[in-house]
């Protein structure tokens, strides 16, 4: 009785193959349409979202830090385990270097320990001895550029 059984199975399998084909077409169509209308979130938006949702931190505007405010990718302030940090996102490696240099020239004592650059993201920590490993890792976990 195998052949009739397999014939019955085939009717279901044929329909399933059609569904899979439709899913593939839908994914391809969705990709084309999505790509034409969607704008990717910025690195700043992704960072803010990550800090708020994944790390459960409060995120604030940068206030009177003129160097960070001028960063073309945006900037934000937050506090990790009691240590405040300003984060500035550059649009290029050169701009990140310029931001770091500006901090080194103007930001006061122990800036070497407090300043951290990762790719195009510049961090300036509040504590005089800079961030602890866990504080730094928390920010790196939400690193976008």
């Amino acid at each position, binding site marked *: 009785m*195998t*052949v009739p059984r*397999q014939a019955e*199975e*085939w009717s*279901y*399998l*044929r*329909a*399933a*193959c059609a*569904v*899979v084909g439709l*899913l*593939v077409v839908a*994914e*391809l169509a*969705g*990709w084309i349409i*999505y790509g034409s209308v969607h704008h990717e979130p910025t690195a700043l938006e*992704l960072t803010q979202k*990550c800090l708020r*949702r*994944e790390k*459960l931190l409060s995120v604030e505007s940068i206030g009177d830090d003129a160097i960070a405010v001028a960063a073309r990718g945006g900037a934000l302030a937050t506090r990790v385990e009691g240590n405040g940090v300003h984060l500035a996102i550059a649009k290029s490696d050169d701009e990140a270097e310029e931001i770091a240099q500006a901090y080194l020239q103007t930001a006061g004592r122990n800036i070497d320990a407090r300043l951290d650059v990762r790719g195009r993201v510049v961090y300036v920590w509040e504590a005089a001895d800079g961030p602890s490993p866990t504080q730094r890792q928390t920010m790196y*976990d*939400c690193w976008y550029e």
Partner: protein
Amino acid sequence: MQAPDSRRNTGRVVAYCVIAAAAVIAVRNATVYPAIAGYDAQEAIDYAEGLVRDGRLPEATGSYYTPPGFFAVGGVGIELGERLELDHPERVGQVVNALAAVGTMLLLLALVRLLWPGREVLHIAAIVFFAVCPVVMKSAAMFHPEPLSMLLSTAAVVLAARILVRSDYRLRVALALGVTLGLAQLVRAWTLWTVGVVVLVLVVAAVTRPRDRGSLLRVVAAVAVVAILVPSPWYAHQLSRYDSALFGQPHPEEPVWSRRPLGFFVGSGLPEVMTEPYRPSFSRQFLPIAYTETWGDYFGVWRWIPGGDPPSDSVRRQLQRMAILGLPFTLVAVAGWLALLALALRRPGRFAERQLVALLPLAALAGAVYFGTAYPTPDGDTVKGSFMLTAVPAWAACFGFAFDGLVWRFRRLSPVLLTVFAVLALFCVPFLFAVAER
């Protein structure tokens, strides 16, 4: 296809040859793959050492939410490895995992023979799918609980299928099934969906087999009681210390359904899923992460190391090749799964045992989607394909079912289909070998 005796014998030989070859690769990988490169490796090794040496469980650190089953075995393995003066004593645990994968392959063969007797093409296709699916070999090389949970989950599915196929409702068989499900929960919480599927299918069988209803309900009761009793000390321990018996990690306050955008559930990851199938591409989309980690190395545990330079050109080409090769296997498996689901829904009383294979991938997908949604991470860490490892044998059976159907329907093209299948599988083989240095 129903096979005559000679073809059946050939099919068996081929199936055992594939299993033997996979066993050699799995054990070889376990002896060369650096344990520290695997998923959460340091946490797993610390857990195992602490458990066996000091008799203590981790307190709110590391993998404290993971049951101790594998770590007890792995910890004894480390002790044994140290007595044998191995350079890397954790290798004993890795070899145990390799053997667990091989054992799962044998159980898969037993399962498909029980569910579809005499259909050798189906059996071989299922075994080959399982053997060449990289997530199996990757996990089998690591010091990690997943392969052992896959072995126990598959053993439970085989026992449940045996009960239904042979109408074997003896109490000791039901107790064996309950104990297996209980032990599986003591290895990994993901096996809870195996418990749910097994109990549901037994209940459906009880409803649709009036003559056996009383016996089946007794089986269901015995299975449920034992499957709850065996892991209950672990759950009680977790509840006495944490908010949850399963995974007491912090998560956003908002409702589960709003923790991920729609794109997380429907995003295809195109074109990066084919051109850049590795982290951090499409890190906020479920399907492409699960797919590329299953068929490649999205998280950088097999061919490249995350956190430094992106994969080299050579590695990138390997990952791109696997992303393409995995596609026909995946699409055929999904077709087989949908067909079996439809059959289960339309005719729940007929071949109830096949519902085990149809429902396990559904439960695994639902569980993984829930976990990835409830605990969102920016890097997709909660969407590992290995979380669904317990469902890979069922996916393999779905693939075998669909491939066998295609070969039966297109009999004249069957040599072509079989050749294409063999060539695709062979192209996957180089990726199955672990490299000692990356």
